[in-house]
């Protein structure tokens, strides 16, 4: 088996439908959704049971969580395989500490459980696998050949987003009076805090004496964070569908200034999406 497994080769059964991230972002219906304020995920505001589209929005988000969990499992698994154990100073295949691989194996188990939970929760919410599309940008972040950048992109950016999403879903379950949803999201949230902390700890350990590498990793995280902000989907505005979960991020090793930067990145992503919506408005009108 090859070291490094390309995203195009990810194995899926026939239920899964892949949609590229660029196609999703450039979908002109996004502008329509932003205009109407009542349909579509983006622009529809915070996820609350009062929203007319709340059941569909929650089910779509749940399906997104499910496919994200699969890719997180695959990414952690590849990190177990792609790198050799060593000091990190060798030539050829990049090396990582033994303990880093153990963390990734532990994450595999957690993500496998999250997949099982997500499948059950999707059924609980009335969704079948494949009812919504999958995009694979999460796994793409897990293909970075530098293990430090890979962990920073996946464990800090991506799993950080998972903290925000699970906290949002947990609150939604609480407000909606759904103890099953609230219970499951609460437990998955605890695991995500652990995964983000792994990313934070390894970033600091592995780059303690290599500041340029640390800066490259943090820059990669900013790029991934901007993608994961999904045009304002995640942010700190009152109407952000997914809110930044500062308290849980702090537990996972995020500093205040890092969270301020993330909030700013999310704000910029939202402004860019609104500009795209504005540019597409004439096309929708016709």
């Amino acid at each position, binding site marked *: 088996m090859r070291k490094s*497994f390309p995203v195009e080769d990810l194995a899926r059964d026939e239920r899964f439908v892949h949609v590229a991230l660029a196609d999703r972002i450039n979908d002109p219906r996004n502008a329509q959704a932003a205009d109407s304020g009542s349909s579509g995920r983006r622009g529809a505001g915070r996820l609350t049971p009062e929203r007319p589209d709340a059941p569909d929005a929650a089910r779509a988000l749940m399906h997104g969580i499910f496919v994200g969990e699969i890719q997180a499992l695959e990414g952690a698994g590849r990190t177990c395989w792609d790198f050799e154990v060593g000091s990190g100073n060798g030539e050829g295949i990049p090396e990582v500490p033994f303990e880093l691989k153990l963390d990734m194996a*532990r994450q595999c*188990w957690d993500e496998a459980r999250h997949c099982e939970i997500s499948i059950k929760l999707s059924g609980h919410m009335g969704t079948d696998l494949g009812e919504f599309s999958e995009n694979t940008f999460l796994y793409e972040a897990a293909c970075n050949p530098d293990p430090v950048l890979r962990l920073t992109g996946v464990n800090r950016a991506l799993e950080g987003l998972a903290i925000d999403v699970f906290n949002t879903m947990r609150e939604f379950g609480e407000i909606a009076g759904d103890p099953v949803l609230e219970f499951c999201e609460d437990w998955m949230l605890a695991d995500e805090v652990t995964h983000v902390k792994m990313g934070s700890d390894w970033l600091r350990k592995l780059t303690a004496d290599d500041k340029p590498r640390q800066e490259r990793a943090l820059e990669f995280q900013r790029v991934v964070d901007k993608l994961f902000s999904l045009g304002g989907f995640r942010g700190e505005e009152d109407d952000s569908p997914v809110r930044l979960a500062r308290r849980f991020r702090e537990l996972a090793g995020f500093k205040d200034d890092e969270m301020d930067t993330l909030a700013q990145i999310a704000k910029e992503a939202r402004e860019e999406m609104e500009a795209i919506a504005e540019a597409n408005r004439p096309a929708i009108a016709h």
Partner: protein
Amino acid sequence: MEESARRVGHYKWIEMRLFEVLGGWVATVPELDVKLRLGTHCYHHAWHSELWHKRLPELREMNPERLTAPPNDELVAFVDAMTEPEGPDLTIEKLVGAYRVLIPAKIAAYTYHRNNTSTITDAPTIRSLDFALADEFNDWRDGEMMLQSLIQSEAELDRAIAHQAALQKLMLAAGGIAGPGTIGDSYEPTQEAYA
């Protein structure tokens, strides 16, 4: 003690190879249930390798990396062959290697070790062997159920048998996961025979 440390080093090496490949295979198998089991079992074997890693210094091997090694080149050849399948249509071959050849070999080695070391002086090793064996039996059962659900035709059965035979020959050449003597020597007279 030296023999115990040598074996524990081989155990750590093979557990590492197994958890690494199980993790790597997750992205390559289309069957969702298999994907999730591989992820779960990946952790089991990583934890075993950690148990052996921590046991080595207690057996006076202060540099665990020194004994983290295969017993011979034949076992390396076995691991190379077992980890080779990658395509999405090769799930049967992947599972056969892990669950019909390697894990049974580990169960045999761990059981032999458990039954032939001192229950008092080497009790910590026995405790770890018991934990590992509990996982090995459960994982073997999961793997066998996945294989039986995937093998639906005579052609698929032939594939499974052919791959198992090829890998089993490599394991035979290696003498087991700890090399020759992994489960003792069947032809060596026992203490009872002399009595």
